[in-house]
């Protein structure tokens, strides 16, 4: 199976310049860690695990994603899909981020049908991260 050039580019971009591609993590003790929501989806036995973190700030009464980081274990298209998701997240409100659908990622990366589950994983990851962030807020 051959990937589209877009998947290949996104994959290589992420691999060769991880910092710029927002690979990384926030851990307890980091500044503003209480404003970070984390979502982990997938399983090693299935060959895909995506960990997404979003940092949100309340701007004019609305929570916006000001930064995001990720790490992904999985095939090339899973890594490219997470990178693509990150690009789409920054600056969005939680509501807007919640509305991102996997189909947008499929379209942008031209994912082959056998790899659509990678984009679904990305969509689940953002949902989880938002839920996690919201649960933090209620604990405030």
């Amino acid at each position: 199976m051959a990937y589209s050039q877009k998947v290949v580019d996104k994959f290589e971009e992420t691999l060769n310049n991880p910092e710029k591609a927002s690979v990384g993590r926030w851990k307890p003790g980091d500044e503003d860690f209480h404003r970070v929501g984390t979502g982990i989806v997938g399983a090693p036995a299935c060959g895909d695990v995506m960990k997404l973190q979003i940092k949100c700030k309340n701007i004019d009464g609305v929570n916006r994603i000001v930064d995001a980081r990720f790490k992904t274990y999985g095939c090339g298209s899973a890594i490219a899909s997470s990178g693509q998701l990150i690009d789409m997240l920054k600056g969005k409100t939680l509501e807007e981020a919640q509305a991102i659908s996997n189909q947008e990622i499929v379209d942008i990366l031209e994912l082959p049908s056998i790899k659509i589950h990678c984009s679904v994983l990305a969509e689940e990851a953002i949902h989880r991260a938002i839920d996690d962030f919201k649960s933090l807020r209620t604990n405030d």
Partner: protein
Amino acid sequence: MNKKYLFKRNNTWWVKVPVPLYLRDDMGFDLRKSTGEKDLDKALLARDKIVPELKSKFVSVPQKNQFAESSFEERTTYFDYASTTPVDERVIEKMKDCLSFEGVFGNSGSRSHVYGWKAEELVEEARVNVSKLLNCDPREIIWTSGATESDNLAIKGAANFYKSKGKHVITSKIEHKAVLDVCRQLEKDNYEITYLDPDEKGVISPAAVKKAIREDTVLVSLMHINNEIGVINDIEEIGNITRANNVIFHVDAAQSAGKVPMDLSSLNVDLMSFSAHKIYGPKGIGALYISRKPRIRLQPLFHGGGQERGIRAGTLPTHQIVGMGEAFRIANEQMEMDHQKLTNFRSILWNGLKDMEEIYVNGAIENSFPGIFNLSFNFVEGESLIMALKNIAVSSGSACTSASLEPSYVLRALGRPDELAHSSIRFSFGRFTRKEEVENTVNLVKNSVSKLREISPLWEMYQDGIDLDKIEWA
């Protein structure tokens, strides 16, 4: 008039012989020599002397990698020889002579004229070449279209022919699909199949075979060298057991013929499958060894013109057969040299990589064929590693590289957890692999794995000391 190799210049006939690709760096595109004759008939006579003289020069030059002209950076390194091999130039030369009107194009089944006789002669010569490599009687070799057909013919053929004796067949969980799928098919016809488990290294123990044999067992089918992990089964010992129990023993030797020494005259193997394209011959041709002592009988799959003593009907593809014969002849000559080279390559790769953290050999280094080396790099998914190693052609047991989205059934049968199966890469070297290619691979793999681990959440957890088995994954 056959004017092959002849051309005319300044009213004189010249001979021109094309140089095989792998020698062109040293010898140029072709070799030319004047016959000194103006008369075509005389030139033809001269040509017949000059052509062998020019061709003999090809042999004296040591064989060199045919891709030598392009640098390593430009060309994708081929490390997938277990999947298929390029055809040796010497084989191509032989095959070319069996196609055109000038060549031996006849039907080996034509008994009434010289075209048929000549084709038959070449087919039989090839059969002898194959039998010499295996040390068996040429009459025990039947041509097929490849190892898949040989496996089908052997298993279905024996199961059908001997079904009055019983309907139980023994095989293993790590056979090639060409054996497993045939067994599944037999199950539909009410045969009972026992699928043996390999040990953690991938070896089928002779004791397990012995234990599984029943009163109604007709056939044991096991592979010699496993295509994914390169581990070698003890077919000598297993053969002793099957023979003592009067059970037919079929061995799939697609990966082993021409790669490790084999002596069918002393092995108690009754049926053995071969393929040409795994050993520098063409695709689309294989063979089945059918023992004469004891005489094994099979129900044919194909019916037709009675070729191959009625066991496998169909016009014999002379060029394919000649190619397989030549490939097996060369393998017989070069086996030791090839094997040493591959052992060296595997050592270079393993010595370069073995100090990496969380790296696992799938199968074993001892008791295995060095041309197949299967490694798992934990916390890195195999397909992404293949993508990162973009100038190296390898294959993976990862689900993502298979159409079924299932990780390798072979690695799972060894008891490897799924995540390690997803993380596996098979490096498979061969005759045209160069040392620099292996050496360069060491660093490329190290860098790629470390980059992928940098972006792997599993690696991060492992580094943090989190036990991944205790996490409840979504």
